[in-house]
């Protein structure tokens, strides 16, 4: 009894904060999406699904939604592929290198996303480092369009989200008993087979957490697609901004936001279920 009361008391500040700052505004926003817009917060008419019909009936909006999902998926996969070896390296490195490496891994987050996004223009722009190098090597004669493409968004986002991937995987790796490597070796497993059969399955919860975080960060990223994706709404977040700020159509912006939220929740829910089914095979170690 006391335990329950203590638990409620401990949770109370967080619950109040969540309700006041998240549940109420988001609920209010979703309510908006069921009315037609006038200007700004003003609505007209009664309860309607018209905004949703418009969104799902228009190829332009669906294309943006698909592009957002696809780019976020690619960002997640690329950051997992680059993040895992980095985390594994940090796990194997001597303890005294842990702090310097962690700072290095976090360094993309120490610079404002706006600044680092513009920084990529210097590298990926038509007169950027990459294009100058390609032309110097004679691989192309005209500049290749790298900036303001999906490729640019992927590069910019991977740069920002990889630290989250690395730290999630590292946390899982650190729970692995290093003796398991030796046990596997005595049983005849070389390093690759030990990685495949022992280490990767045990790192799976970390990879799962990392990919979930990264996907959510990517799907809701605004600055990188806005700066590196070129002009006009090309990402679901920039579309929302466009509706709210440029067109001043709050209800339609709220509709897009509600769909983004629903898609993100669905993807995360399905993904976590798949992961827990994979992980359910092994009950938590004592």
């Amino acid at each position, binding site marked *: 009894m006391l335990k329950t009361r203590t638990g409620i008391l401990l949770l109370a500040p967080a619950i109040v904060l969540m309700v006041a700052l998240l549940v109420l505004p988001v609920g209010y926003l979703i309510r908006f999406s069921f009315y037609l817009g006038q200007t700004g917060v003003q609505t007209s008419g009664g309860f309607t699904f018209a905004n949703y019909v418009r969104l799902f009936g228009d190829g332009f909006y669906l294309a943006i939604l698909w592009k957002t999902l696809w780019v976020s998926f690619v960002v997640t996969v690329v950051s997992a592929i680059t993040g895992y070896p980095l985390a594994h390296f940090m796990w194997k490195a001597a303890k005294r290198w842990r702090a310097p490496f962690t700072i290095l891994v976090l360094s993309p987050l120490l610079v404002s996303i706006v600044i680092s996004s513009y920084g990529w223009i210097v590298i990926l722009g038509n007169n950027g480092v990459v294009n100058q190098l390609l032309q110097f090597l004679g691989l192309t004669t005209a500049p290749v369009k790298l900036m303001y493409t999906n490729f640019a968004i992927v590069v910019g986002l991977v740069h920002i989200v990889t630290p989250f991937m690395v730290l999630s995987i590292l946390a899982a790796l650190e729970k692995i008993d290093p003796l*398991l490597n030796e*046990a596997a070796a*005595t049983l005849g*497993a070389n390093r690759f087979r030990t990685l495949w059969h022992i280490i990767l399955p045990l790192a799976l919860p970390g990879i799962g957490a990392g990919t979930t975080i990264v996907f959510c960060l990517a799907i809701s990223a605004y600055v990188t697609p806005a700066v590196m994706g070129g002009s006009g709404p090309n990402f679901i977040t920039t579309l929302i901004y466009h509706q709210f700020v440029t067109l001043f159509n709050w209800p339609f912006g709220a509709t897009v936001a509600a769909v983004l939220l629903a898609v993100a929740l669905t993807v995360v829910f399905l993904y976590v279920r798949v992961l827990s089914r994979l992980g359910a095979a092994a009950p938590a*170690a004592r």
Partner: protein
Amino acid sequence: MTAVSLQNITKTYGETRAIDNLSLEIASGEFLTLLGPSGCGKTTTLRAIAGLVVQDSGSVKIGGVDLSAVPTHKRNIGMVFQSHALFPHMTVADNVAFGLRMRGMAKDQREAEVEKALDLVRLPGYGSRFPSQLSGGQQQRVALARALVINPSVLLLDEPFGALDRKLRETMQVELRELTRRIGITAVFVTHDQEEALMLSDRIAVMNAGRIEQLGSPAAIFEAPATRFVADFMGVANLIRARVAAVNGAHVNLEAGSLRLLAPRVDGLSAGGEIDVAIRAERMALDAAGMAGENAARGRILSAVYHGNLTTYEIDAGGQRLTAREASAPGTGGTRFRAGDEVTLRWAPEAVRVLLS
């Protein structure tokens, strides 16, 4: 036939020599224990056999083949670790089958072998459980099955029972002893527990500072420790520095302060030399009456400690501190004597063991 042969193995970490020019031959089917305190190099030696540690010089041969340059996963050894090191995401059956899988054995054949191995360690029907659902002793049995199922050339055990409570440890020791003898496997066991070593082994190698201090049967190590280190490690309470007074016939006369000792003669003693002698506490008999003399001393009890079946007395015998241990006398409140009592200690000449310096 020699199963494992270590020749002049040396391994240094920085300034310290973990293994110092160690050579050892282990016979096929033998149960050999590396016994010593922590830091004596016993675990490093075991790991060198496994290839988990690569020696700086010397060679490791298993079954007559030099494996010094062969990595662990190609050595065909079975190893059991203190923390069992079971794969937590695999069932018991998958853990045991892992080594067979790495050897490319077909699935149905694997399952039959796993079943046999689990029967061997008395865990039939536990295949579908996960390691976290087993007790400490059961986990260690699974680790043993996993190491044995691959039919290794040698079974290596690194303090496998160190984490278990005393009663369970004793059960596991009896089982391991019976099992290894029955299947006739060559085993190298590492422990710091002398009782465990005495009970399990065909031979014991007592290690100190990276070297083997004494190699012999449990009885030889216990009854006839060769050096002061071995005697001390095997729990000999009375280590006395003595001067050789006379050598005559089958015996030597020794003096240590006011103590006069008669010991069986050993080679290389001459009158006037200084040597160490060891006398086990349980070989000292206590009496209220009596006189000092050869292999007999008068003393005063400093302390009497009751351990249940045994009682240990600390005695001051003319400035020489001696320890005697005897079966606790029933009906005396546990101890026959109390601190302050005057007693006579007696011991047989055969109880006095002259140690090499």
